[in-house]
C-alpha cells in the first residue's frame, strides 16, 4: 500500500502498465468521462435552451431537491424496490430449481437446457412484445386460458390496471432473467467435486441435507455475483417497460431508469434526469463495493 502510486514503483512496473493502457484509456473515455459528465450535468440547470450551446448555469443541489420532492420520483423509487426484490428473489429461486433439475442426467436434458436459454438470448423487443400480446386484456392468451379453466370470469387488464401493470412487467423481467441465473448456477454446480457428495451420502446425508450443507455454501461465490449482477441489471431495465406499458397507466409501472429517461428526453430536463442517474449510480456503487469487499476477503 505504501509504495503504491510512488514514482519508483510505477517506473518499475512500467512494462506491465503499458499492457493495460489501451483498456485503461477505453475505460476513461467511455466510462469515466460519461460518469463524471453526468455528475456535472446533475448540478446544472441543463435544459432545452442551453443544451446545444452547453453553457448551463450551475445551480448546486437545486436539481436534487426538485427530483426528491417530486411525488413521481417517490413512486418510481418504491416501484424500483418492489421490482428489484421480486426480480432478484424469484429469478434466483426459479433459476436454482431449474439448475437442480438440469443437473440431473436425463434424456433430452441438453436439449431442454438450450431451449430455456432462448428466452435469455431473445432481444428484449421480442420478449416484451410477446408478453404484451400474452397478457393483453382483450385477446391475450393468458386471460383466455384463465377463463377457460374457470379461474376468472372477466379478463384481467394485466397491463392497463394500476397496481397490476407493475407486477406484469416484473413477471416478464423475471422470465427474461431466469435462464441467466440457471446457467450460472448450473455451471457452478457442475464444477463441484463429486467426492464430497459421495462422502456425505456415506455419512448418511440425504439429498436435501447435502443441498443445504454442501451445494449452497460451495456456490456462495456464484450466488453473490449473481445477486450483484441482478441488482445492476434491474437498474438497466428500460426497454421492457417502454414496450409493455410505457410506464403507465398513470405512471404506475415506472421504475427509476424509466423516470430518468422521461425527465431527460420527454421533458428535456437533462439536469434532473442526470440526478436520477447519479442516485442510481451511488446506490449501485454501494452494493458493488460491498461485493468487492466480500470477494476480496474470500481471496485472501
Amino acid at each position, binding site marked *: 500500500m505504501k509504495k503504491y502510486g510512488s514514482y519508483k514503483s510505477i517506473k518499475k512496473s512500467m512494462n506491465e502498465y503499458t499492457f493495460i493502457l489501451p483498456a485503461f484509456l477505453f475505460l476513461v473515455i467511455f466510462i469515466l468521462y460519461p460518469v463524471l459528465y453526468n455528475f456535472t450535468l446533475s448540478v446544472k440547470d441543463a435544459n432545452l435552451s442551453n443544451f446545444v450551446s452547453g453553457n448551463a448555469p450551475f445551480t448546486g443541489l437545486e436539481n436534487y431537491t426538485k427530483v426528491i420532492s417530486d411525488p413521481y420520483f417517490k413512486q418510481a423509487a418504491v416501484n424500483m424496490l418492489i421490482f428489484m426484490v421480486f426480480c432478484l428473489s424469484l429469478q434466483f429461486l426459479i433459476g436454482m430449481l431449474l439448475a437442480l433439475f438440469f443437473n440431473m442426467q436425463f434424456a433430452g436434458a441438453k436439449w431442454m437446457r438450450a431451449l430455456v436459454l432462448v428466452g435469455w438470448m431473445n432481444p428484449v423487443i421480442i420478449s416484451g412484445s410477446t408478453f404484451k400480446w400474452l397478457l393483453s386484456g382483450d385477446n391475450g392468451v393468458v386471460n383466455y386460458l384463465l377463463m377457460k379453466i374457470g379461474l376468472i370470469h372477466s379478463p384481467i387488464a394485466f397491463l392497463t390496471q394500476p397496481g397490476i401493470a407493475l407486477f406484469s412487467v416484473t413477471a416478464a423481467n423475471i422470465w427474461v432473467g431466469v435462464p441467466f441465473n440457471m446457467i450460472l448456477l448450473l455451471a457452478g454446480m457442475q464444477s463441484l467435486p463429486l467426492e464430497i457428495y459421495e462422502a456425505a451420502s456415506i455419512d448418511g446425508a440425504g439429498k436435501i441435507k447435502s443441498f443445504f450443507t454442501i451445494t449452497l455454501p460451495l456456490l456462495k461465490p456464484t450466488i453473490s455475483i449473481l445477486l450483484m449482477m441482478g441488482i445492476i441489471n434491474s437498474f438497466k431495465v428500460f426497454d421492457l417497460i417502454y414496450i409493455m406499458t410505457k410506464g*403507465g397507466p398513470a405512471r404506475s409501472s415506472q421504475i427509476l431508469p424509466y423516470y430518468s429517461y422521461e425527465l431527460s428526453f420527454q421533458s428535456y430536463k*437533462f439536469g434532473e434526469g442526470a440526478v436520477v442517474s447519479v442516485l442510481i449510480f451511488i446506490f449501485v*456503487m454501494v452494493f458493488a463495493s460491498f461485493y468487492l469487499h466480500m470477494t476480496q476477503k474470500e481471496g485472501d
Partner: protein
Amino acid sequence: MKKRVVSVLLASCLLTGLLAGCSGGNEGNSEDSGQTSDTAGKKELNVWYYWDNDQGEILQEYVDKFNEQSEIVSIKASYVPYAEYTQKVLTAAAGGSGPDVLIYGNNETSVLAESGVLGTMTDLVEEGGLKERILPEVMKSHEYNGEYYGLPIYGNCLALFYNKDMVSEPPKTWDDLLATAEEVTTSDTYALAFAAAESEEGTFQFLPWLWSAGADLDSLDSEEGIAALSLYKELVDEGYASKEVVGWLQQDAMLQFCNGRAAMMVNGPWQMPSIQENAPDLDYGVSILPARKEGEAASILGGESFGVAVNADKEAAKEFFDWIYGEENYSDFVKELGQLPAEEEMLMDSYYQDDPLKKAFADNLMVAKPRAYGPDYNEMSKAIQTAITASLSGMKSPEEAMKEAADVAGPLLEKQQ
C-alpha cells in the same frame, strides 16, 4: 494490488450501461446515399430524415433528381430512426455535427427552435410567397417567438374511420357517437378504437375532443375540459371502447379496426396504406371527428416539415427549397408520398376532391389546429397523458385527473407569456 485495480475497473465496467443515456453520441448515422454524380466544387448539404421504406426511397429519388440538375449544391440524405430522432438531432447539434436541413414533425418546432437547433426561416418563408400558399394554421405550427422555423412538406390530421358494414351513417356529434356506439357494440366488437397510451400519441388523439368541447390547455379543469375526458371514460366504462386503449398507440387502434374488432377508429391518413395491406377487402369511409355540438368539429394537425439548422448555409438550402416547392416538383412529391399538401389551392385539385377518402382528410385539414404551446409542451402533454390513463383505469375521477393536469399545464403556460 494489481488485482484490486483490475477488479475496480471491472466493477465500474459493470456499471456502464446505466449512465449511457446521458452521454451524447455525435456521429450522425450517415449512410452513403450512393450518389455517383460529381460533387466536386458543389456545396454539400446534409439532410436528415426518419422516413422508412417507400417514403425514404421517394425522398432519395427526389434528392438524386435535384443533385443531377443543380450546379451549386449537392445533397446528402441520411436516415436516422424515428425513435431516437429528436435525441440524435439534439446531441449532434450539441456536438457541432448536426444536419444542415432536417425533416421533422411540425409539433417539434418550438422544441427545436428553443434548443437552438433550428435557425429562423422567416425570410425564406416570406420571400418566395410560400407563406401565402400555405394554410394559416399549418404555418402557425412553424412559428415560435414571432419567427418561422420551418416549411411544411405536408400536413395531416385525425379523422373518424368507420367500417361501412357496421356503421351506415358516421356520427356527427358526441350524442350521435354514443348512440351509434350502443348500436354497434357486440361481445366481440367495440364501437370505437383510439390511442390513449402514455405517449404523445395519447395527447394527440385527445386534443381534438378537448378543443371541440370548447376547452384548451389553459382550461383543462373547466367544465368543458372535464366533459371531454368524461366522454372518453363513458366510452370505456360502457364497453364501447376497450379498457386496453390506455395501452394503445395509433398503430394498435388501426389493427383493431382492420380485424373488424372495432367499428370505428380515430386515426390519420398515414394509416391508409397499412389498412390496404392488412385488410384489402375492408369497406370503410372517413368522416370528420364528432363534435360536442354540431358544426363545432375540430381536428389536430400533424405533418412533417423542413427545418434549417442555425449554422447551415441558407443559400444552399434556399436552392433546394426553390426546387422542391417549385411547380413541377412539389405537387408530385406530395402525391407520391401519399400525403396532403398544406396548401388550400392544391387541396382543391380534383386529385384530392374526387376521392371521398382524400376529400374527407382535406376537409379535416382545413379545420385542423396545431399544437403550438411552446417548448414546454411535452411536459404539459405528459400531464394530460397521465390524466387520461389515471381516469380511464379508474385511479381518479375525470375531475380530479383534469385538476392535476391543469396544475401542471397552467403554470407552464403562464411562464411562457
